[in-house]
C-alpha cells in the first residue's frame, strides 16, 4: 500500500508531462522520422558500418610497419603530392582562364562549349582505353604523328614513370576540366553587368576588370571548387588505374590505387586501409571546412 501510494504521484506527473506538456516528438516530427527512415537505414548499413569496419581494420599495428617499410609507399606519397599540386592547380587555373573564353557571346562559342563538355559526359573507361591505345609508344597515334611530322621517336608515354605521371595528370585534366570550367562560367554569368559598365566608365581595361570585378565576385566559388576537386582528385582511381595501372614497377601509383592494390592484389586489407588513411590529414580538414562553407552558402 505504502509503496503503491508513493508511486502514484510519480506516475501522475509523468502522465502530465506526456499529455499536456511538450511531447517528445511533435506530429510533424513523427512523420519526418518516417520519411527519413529509408535514408537513415541505408546510412547505418552502408556508410556507418563500413567506416567503423575500416577503423577496426586500422587497429592492426603491424599493418603500419608493412606499409611504411614498403619502398613504393614513399614514391606513392610523392606521386599523390604531384597529382594534387600540379593536376589540381593546373586544372583550376586552366578552368579560370577558359571561363573567360566561354563567357563571350556568340553562336560559335556555344557550339564549342557543348563539345567541350563531352569528356565529362562520356564514361571514363572507353575514353581512357582510347587514350591508352593512342599513347602506346610503338603503335599509338601520337607517336606516329610525332614521327611523321618531326621525324623523332616519341617518348614512352606510359612505360616511363615520369612521362607516366604526366600522362595521368593530362588525362585527369582532360576528363574534369570541362566540369569545373562550366561551374566557373555559371558563376561569372551571374555577375551583374552594370558592375562591368561602371568599371569601364572608370577607365578599367580588361585585365583590371578581371582583377577588380570578376575575380572578387567568383573568388568564393573558385575556392570552394578547388577544395572540392582536391578531395575528389584524391579519390581518382580511374585516371591512374586504367591508364598505367600504377606501373611501370608500381612507380605511378597514388594513395587511391595503392590502397586498392594492397587490399585486392595482395589480399592485405589492413595495409590497404592504412595506405588510404594517409590521406586523412588532408581529407578531414577539407571535409570539415567544406561542410561549413556549403551549409553557410545554402542558408544564405
Amino acid at each position: 500500500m505504502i509503496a503503491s501510494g508513493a508511486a502514484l504521484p510519480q506516475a501522475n506527473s509523468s502522465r502530465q508531462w506526456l499529455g499536456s506538456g511538450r511531447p517528445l516528438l511533435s506530429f510533424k516530427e513523427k512523420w519526418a522520422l518516417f520519411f527519413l527512415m529509408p535514408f537513415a537505414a541505408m546510412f547505418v548499413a552502408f556508410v556507418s558500418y563500413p567506416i567503423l569496419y575500416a577503423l577496426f581494420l586500422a587497429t592492426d599495428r603491424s599493418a603500419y610497419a608493412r606499409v611504411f617499410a614498403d619502398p613504393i609507399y614513399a614514391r606513392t606519397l610523392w606521386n599523390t603530392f604531384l597529382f594534387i599540386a600540379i593536376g589540381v592547380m593546373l586544372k583550376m587555373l586552366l578552368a579560370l582562364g577558359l571561363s573567360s573564353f566561354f563567357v563571350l557571346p556568340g553562336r560559335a562559342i556555344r557550339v564549342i562549349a557543348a563539345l567541350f563538355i563531352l569528356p565529362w559526359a562520356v564514361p571514363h573507361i572507353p575514353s581512357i582505353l582510347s587514350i591508352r591505345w593512342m599513347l602506346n609508344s610503338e603503335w599509338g597515334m601520337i607517336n606516329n604523328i610525332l614521327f611523321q611530322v618531326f621525324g623523332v621517336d616519341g617518348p614512352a608515354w606510359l612505360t616511363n614513370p615520369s612521362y607516366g605521371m604526366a600522362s595521368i595528370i593530362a588525362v585527369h585534366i582532360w576528363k574534369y576540366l570541362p566540369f569545373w570550367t562550366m561551374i566557373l562560367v555559371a558563376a561569372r554569368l551571374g555577375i551583374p553587368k552594370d558592375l562591368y559598365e561602371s568599371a569601364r566608365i572608370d577607365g578599367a581595361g580588361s585585365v583590371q576588370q578581371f582583377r577588380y570585378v570578376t575575380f572578387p565576385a567568383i573568388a568564393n566559388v573558385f575556392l570552394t571548387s578547388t577544395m572540392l576537386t582536391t578531395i575528389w582528385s584524391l579519390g581518382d582511381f580511374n585516371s591512374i588505374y586504367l591508364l598505367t595501372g600504377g606501373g611501370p614497377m608500381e612507380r605511378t601509383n597514388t594513395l587511391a590505387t595503392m590502397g586498392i592494390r594492397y587490399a585486392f592484389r595482395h589480399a592485405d586489407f589492413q595495409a590497404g586501409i592504412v595506405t588510404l588513411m594517409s590521406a586523412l590529414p588532408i581529407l578531414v580538414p577539407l571535409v570539415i571546412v567544406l561542410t561549413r562553407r556549403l551549409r553557410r552558402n545554402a542558408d544564405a
Partner: protein
Amino acid sequence: MHEIAFKPLLRQAGLIVLGALILLWTLLPLYHMVILSLTPVGEGFAGKLWPDAPTLDNYRIVLTQDNYYLSRFWLQLGNSVLVAFTSCVFVFALSLTASFAITRLRPRFAGFASHMALITYLVPATFLAIPFYQVMGSYGLLGSRWALIITIATFATPYAIWVLQQNAGSVPRELDEAAEIDGASPWQIFRLVYLPLMVPTIVAVGAFAVMLSWNEYLYAFLLLSDEDRITLPVMLGQFLSDDSAPWPLLMVSGVLYSLPPAILYFLARRYMATGLAAGSVKG
C-alpha cells in the same frame, strides 16, 4: 588609325586559334575512339589518322556478338542498364523522402540528417571501397548485381538530397500550409504538392544517378565477377593490358557505350546545369 582597326581583327584571330586548340584537345581521344572502331581488326596497330579501308563490319561483329571477346555484349550492356535504372529508382525513393522531411517537415534533427548526407557526399567513394567490399561480403551480397545497385544508391543519394534540399526553397511553403488547412496529411502533401513541383530537380538528380552508375568501374569490378553479371565497363577493363585483344572491337563497344550518356546529357542539359551548379558550389 591603322592600329585601331587591326586590334579587333587580331583578337578575333586569337579567339579562333584558341577555339581550335580547345576542340583539338577535347575531341582527339574521342575521334581516336571512333576511327579505331572503324579500322579493320588487323590494322589496329597502325596509329593512322584515318584508316586505309574504314569498315562498319566491326559494328556488325559487336552487335551480333560474333567474336569470342564480345560474346556476351548484349547481356553485359543489359546489366549496365538494369543497374542504372534500379539504382536510379532507389536514389529517388531515398532522396525524395529524406529531402521532404528535412526541408518541409523541419524536425529538430533535420540539421543532423542533412549534415550526414553532406559529409557522405564529400567523401570520395574510392576511400570506402575496401570496407565496402568486406561489408557486402558479410551481407552475403558479393557477386550479386544488388551489391552494385546498393553501392550506386549509397553514393548518389547524398548528392541527390543535397541538390533537392537546395532547390526545395523554390516551392512556396504557403502551398504546404494551404494543403494542411484542407486536412492533407504529410504523405498527401509529399505526393500532391512536393513531388509535382520538384520535377525539374528530380530530372537532374535522376540523370546524375544514371550517369554515375553508367560510369562506375571500381566498385563494379570489385563486387561482380561472374561473366554473366558484370557490367560493360568491367568487360572492357578486362582487356586493359591485353594487347592481343581486338581493340577495334573494344572501341566499337566503347562508342556504343558512350552514346547513351552523351545523348542523355544533351537532353537533360538544361536541368542538369541548374542542378549541378546548385549542388556542387553555390557562391
